[in-house]
């Protein structure tokens, strides 16, 4: 059992090592096969491990070795497997395997096929380390590692400089968040002498609520989570990260890496519950991010960018749930979101593949005839994310809305408006891509084809999950067991707050009604009246321009933070490095040279001079001998 659990992250690591060293010489079938099989094997291992851990009713810790041992604390290298871990493991290996299968078809013609699978496997390894670690430090290893893999995979097509800039941006912003994480680790270590999750959660139960130390620790950790999970203020890297191949966007920026922040807070729920100030901040930031990102998504014209802002928005929902204390609801939305967001991204990849690389929805249209499976799956994904019953998103979103209502009325209003916007931009995307006349070039029209089975099979599987996944968490108004909540109740101590049944029914009714209105409205606007998104921004008035340009936040960050640092680094290079450091080193070399040049003039070759020098030397030695006796 201990060994089986250790093999779960080890198999993808081995896949990475094989692919990165010998991948170039191996035929594509073998390197791709190794990449896919290692994750499949991990998934099978998770399935094997699941029943035995699930029956334990308590967390199981597998310690492997004592990593850091000092007099005041010990940090072991150990894994903590409990129900929360199992949920994440299932998502990572399951959805991960589907995306590996998809990548086989998507990256078939790429010459760096082996490198893609190597990096994907490395990512899975680090992500598994992140969720299985039993203390903050192992999680941090995984945290940094997935940031690295995100950089490697976003900049996968590194010959195009724009991709490198996007990868740099993602990595640097992640690192800024990591600073918060590190400060949190240091504070924990200093005050509580332990980084173990079980220990921290139990310590948190004993200290007074709202103590400064706990608030600082949780705020720092939350800052790290905003970097990883793309919340305000560190979200600007996610839309740019769409420069990477679509399977990367699906895996990293929809299903797994961005969920690391939410997992962290859910894991340390005891600690966070002891700091109500932090919970309020998480709540507000989550809802604000959800709202702003949804607005920005309405005016985007790139398929993947719309989905990227949608991811930021949905992550905001999850943070709102966490901030309100409903950790299980946040994790539930994480699971359903993993299903339908990965589905949407993979469908987008299928569309891009069919359109020979075109990503602008203004140049698409009427694809539903040519891409039947993709169209159906995309429709299912859209219905799921908009919260149409009985698809997955309906149940998880409703839960979050209900929890928000119990905490704050106005935030609930904001979040409901965000749901409206979500439906608007998703259906806008759907209608513009699949309905209406085809707006692309003749060349693209000839190449339109449905994707191979390696790409459509994962779509179908994820679509099934998006349809039925919601039934894992049926609200109790229907008097059915909430499987997800009971599953996580062993980990998450605080039960969610209850809402009245009347309110639940109202909420469901109103949201269904609103959805119908929205779908009809969007359809009429874009298809019936043939209103296309504008070709350029010159026709917009000032507030439309602001939304189109994403509220100029990127430009603000560039002007206030990026440019001063770039100028500073240029100054340091020009003055400190080239003139001073190089100057000193060069001078030392020059002085050696000069002394050599003057020394060589002693070699005159004249015998008389040599004898003279010898005599002088003897006299000098005698003098020194007698003077310093």
């Amino acid at each position, binding site marked *: 059992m201990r060994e089986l659990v250790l093999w779960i992250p080890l198999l993808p690591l081995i896949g990475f090592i094989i692919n990165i060293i010998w991948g170039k010489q191996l035929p594509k079938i073998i390197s791709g096969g190794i990449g896919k099989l290692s994750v499949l094997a991990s998934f099978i291992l998770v399935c094997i491990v699941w029943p035995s851990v699930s029956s334990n009713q308590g967390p199981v810790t597998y310690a492997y070795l004592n990593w850091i041992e000092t007099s005041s604390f010990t940090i072991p290298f150990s894994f903590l497997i409990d129900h929360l871990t199992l949920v994440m493991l299932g998502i990572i290996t399951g959805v991960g395997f589907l995306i590996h299968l998809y990548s086989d078809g998507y990256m078939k013609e790429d010459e760096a096929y082996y490198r893609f699978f190597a990096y994907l496997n490395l990512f899975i390894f680090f992500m598994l380390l992140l969720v299985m670690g039993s203390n903050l430090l192992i999680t941090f290893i995984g945290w940094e590692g997935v940031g690295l893999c995100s950089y490697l995979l976003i900049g996968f097509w590194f010959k195009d400089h724009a991709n490198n800039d996007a990868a740099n941006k993602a990595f640097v912003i992640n690192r800024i968040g990591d600073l918060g994480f590190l400060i949190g680790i240091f504070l924990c270590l200093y005050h509580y002498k332990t980084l173990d999750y079980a220990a921290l959660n139990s310590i948190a139960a004993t200290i007074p609520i709202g103590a400064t130390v706990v608030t600082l620790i949780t705020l720092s950790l939350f800052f790290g989570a905003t970097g990883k999970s793309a919340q305000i203020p560190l979200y600007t890297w996610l839309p740019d990260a769409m420069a990477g191949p679509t399977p990367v966007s699906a895996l990293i920026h929809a299903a797994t890496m961005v969920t690391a922040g939410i997992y962290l807070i859910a894991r340390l729920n005891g600690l966070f519950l002891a700091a109500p100030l932090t919970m309020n901040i998480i709540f507000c930031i989550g809802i604000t991010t959800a709202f702003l990102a949804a607005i920005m998504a309405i005016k985007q014209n790139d398929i993947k960018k719309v989905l990227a802002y949608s991811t930021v928005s949905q992550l905001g929902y999850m943070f709102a749930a966490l901030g309100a204390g409903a950790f299980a609801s946040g994790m539930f939305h994480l699971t359903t979101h993993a299903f339908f967001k990965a589905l949407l991204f993979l469908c987008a990849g299928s569309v891009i593949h069919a359109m020979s690389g075109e990503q602008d929805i203004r140049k698409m249209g009427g694809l539903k005839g040519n891409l039947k499976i993709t169209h159906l799956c995309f429709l299912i994904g859209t219905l799921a994310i908009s919260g149409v019953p009985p698809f997955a998103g309906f149940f998880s979103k409703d839960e979050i809305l209900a929890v928000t209502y119990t905490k704050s009325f106005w935030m609930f209003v904001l979040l409901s408006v965000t749901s409206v916007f979500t439906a608007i931009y998703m259906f806008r995307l759907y209608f513009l891509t699949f309905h209406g006349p085809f707006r692309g070039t003749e060349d693209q029209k000839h190449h339109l084809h449905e994707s191979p089975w390696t790409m459509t099979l994962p779509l179908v599987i994820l679509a099934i999950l998006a349809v039925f996944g919601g039934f894992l968490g049926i609200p109790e108004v229907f008097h059915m067991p909430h499987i997800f909540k009971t599953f996580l109740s062993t980990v998450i101590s605080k039960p969610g707050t209850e809402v009245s049944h009347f309110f639940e029914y109202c909420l469901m009714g109103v949201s269904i009604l609103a959805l119908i209105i929205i779908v009809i409205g969007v359809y009429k606007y874009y298809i019936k009246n043939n209103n296309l998104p504008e070709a350029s921004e010159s026709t917009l008035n000032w507030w439309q321009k602001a939304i189109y340009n994403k509220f100029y936040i990127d430009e603000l960050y560039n002007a206030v933070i990026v440019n001063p640092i770039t100028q500073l680094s240029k100054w340091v290079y020009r003055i400190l490095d080239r003139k001073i450091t190089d100057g000193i080193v060069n001078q030392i070399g020059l002085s050696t040279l000069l002394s050599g040049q003057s020394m*060589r*003039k*002693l*070699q*005159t*070759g*004249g*015998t*008389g001079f040599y*004898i*003279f020098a010898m*005599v002088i030397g003897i006299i000098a030695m005698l003098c020194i001998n007698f003077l310093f006796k």
Partner: protein
Amino acid sequence: MLDSIQQIPLNYYILLSTVLFSIGVLGVLLRRNAIIIFMCIELMLNAVNLLLVAFSAYSQNSAGQTFVFFVMIIAAAEVAVGLAILVMVYRNVHSVDIEKLQNLKW
């Protein structure tokens, strides 16, 4: 025996030895003919021999005189080798002028 030796004060011997040695050094430094330089080296050696014998006689210690034996042997050997080298140099350069030996210049 000692008083007949001690009729000439030791200082005279030291002075004589020093003068001989200095003449030898100056000769080594200033003369251009290699054979003259060898002779001056011999002069230095003899000056030291004289000093050693003088001290040995005045302090009735025979160690000085024994050392003189060794010095003489070594001087003889050194002259033999030195003159052999000088002969070879002459065969190549056709002169014993040390100013002509400038090839080891930088």
